[in-house]
């Protein structure tokens, strides 16, 4: 039920107009971080205040919303944001990727390919890919202006010099349409190839840092690399222990104090869907039925 004490989707209309204008400029200049007047939201910074504001500006009453945190629909962050919009916007919610029209995500892109008509909203902690290389905003802004991205290649090179390979494994920088270097938010680099040429609209919101940026559909986003050290979308070299998936991103779960562990799909909807279709992994056994009282 919609909470009548709030405007539709919580934010007031003036704020939504400001965010909507920022989103459109972000769409017009793919990969460029548009400053916006981020509002305080009824949740702490780091819980997705940027993503929540972008979602609030995009939601329509007819939407079916899915919220994921590290791929899971049932973690605290995902559950609380989903409830927030159920209460303030009265929208339908779903856990099925294919049934959702708007998906807010923290640090994953769903395994099920997105389609035309869907919007993926990312929660972004640090929108500036150059921030840990150059702390001054005035300087990073100038570097984007001049397309001066040599420092980022130096960082990747130092990875190779130190570790023999590019050790950056998440928030792996991409170059958008051959122009702006962009932080894809801390998604695993396994997900990077899905950024490029995606038929869905991808929007990025950073609340504390007050930035919005976007990837329109079918936009190229190339992961930075070197000719002799090409980009590799890596994952744990295992199969999912619940559904047996070979090509999904896996979480490692410690199961006891004696080194026991298992690997499971980080995307809970994908994993459950495969199990419902009869796929079985190494450790899968159906939950025992509760005895009738």
């Amino acid at each position, binding site marked *: 039920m919609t909470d009548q004490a709030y*405007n539709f989707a919580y934010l007031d209309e*003036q704020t939504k107009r400001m965010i909507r204008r*920022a989103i*459109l400029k972000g769409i*017009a200049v793919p990969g460029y971080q548009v400053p916006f007047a981020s509002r305080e939201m009824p949740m702490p910074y780091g819980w997705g205040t940027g993503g929540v504001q972008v979602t609030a500006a*995009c939601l*329509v009453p007819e939407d079916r919303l899915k919220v994921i945190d590290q791929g899971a629909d049932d973690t605290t962050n995902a559950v609380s944001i989903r409830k927030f919009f159920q209460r303030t916007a009265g929208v339908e919610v779903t856990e099925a990727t294919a049934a959702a029209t708007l998906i807010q995500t923290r640090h994953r892109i769903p395994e099920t390919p997105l389609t035309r008509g869907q919007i993926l909203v990312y929660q972004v902690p640090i929108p500036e890919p150059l921030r840990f290389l150059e702390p001054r905003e005035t300087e990073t802004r100038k570097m984007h202006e001049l397309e001066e991205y040599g420092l980022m290649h130096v960082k990747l090179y130092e990875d190779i010099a130190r570790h023999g390979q590019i050790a950056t494994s998440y928030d792996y920088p991409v170059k958008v349409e051959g122009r702006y270097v962009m932080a894809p938010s801390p998604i695993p680099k396994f997900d990077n190839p899905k950024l490029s040429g995606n038929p869905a609209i991808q929007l990025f919101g950073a609340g504390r840092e007050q930035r919005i940026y*976007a990837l*329109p559909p*079918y936009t190229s986003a190339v992961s930075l690399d070197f000719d002799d050290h090409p980009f590799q979308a890596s994952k744990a070299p295992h199969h999912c222990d619940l559904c047996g998936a070979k090509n999904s991103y896996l979480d490692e779960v410690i199961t006891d104090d004696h080194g026991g562990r298992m690997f499971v799909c980080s995307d809970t909807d994908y994993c459950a869907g495969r199990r419902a279709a009869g796929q079985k992994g190494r450790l899968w056994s159906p939950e025992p039925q509760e005895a009738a009282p």
Partner: protein
Amino acid sequence: MTHATHSADLSGGFTEISHQSARAFREILEAMARPGSIRTVVGALPPAPLSVAAGVVLLTLTDPTTPLHLAGEADCKAVRDWVAFHIGAPLVAAEAAAFAIGTWEALHPVSRFAIGQPDYPDRAATLIVEADRLTNHGPALTGPGIETATWLSLPETAAFHANRALFPLGFDCIFTCGDRLAGVPRSTRVEKI
């Protein structure tokens, strides 16, 4: 329309603002994210010569913080009064505008509009271009948001060539015709066919 019409300039706004502006924005977002795709919007009844779609875009995106330029026939008393009552945007000259509205001829020369700054390319104008027709026939569009290529009835190609050459600077366009609209952001490449 259920409310009483006291005067022409008091009617024609959104009657259910949060839902209508949300739906309108989604259509505008789809239009700008997929250049050349033609979307239909509802909810505004602005005075002549503004189209329904132009009125919807104004109500959805502009407010007292966005300087607006009325070009040509759009700069009439009825429109000025309607903007003053429903939007409150300051009316300014073309060079200072965040949004501008008019026919392509009235907006010319388009080179006078803000194209943003090299370090802040977002500070560029959005042109709402009123068109007599809006169809998927005409110059070819390619670029972000377009899978292969699409076509749109644009008034010319030279201005869009020049605008694309400025990327990441440049103005963005929303073409409106009746209750339909289509987006041509600065990232789109326009070719004569």
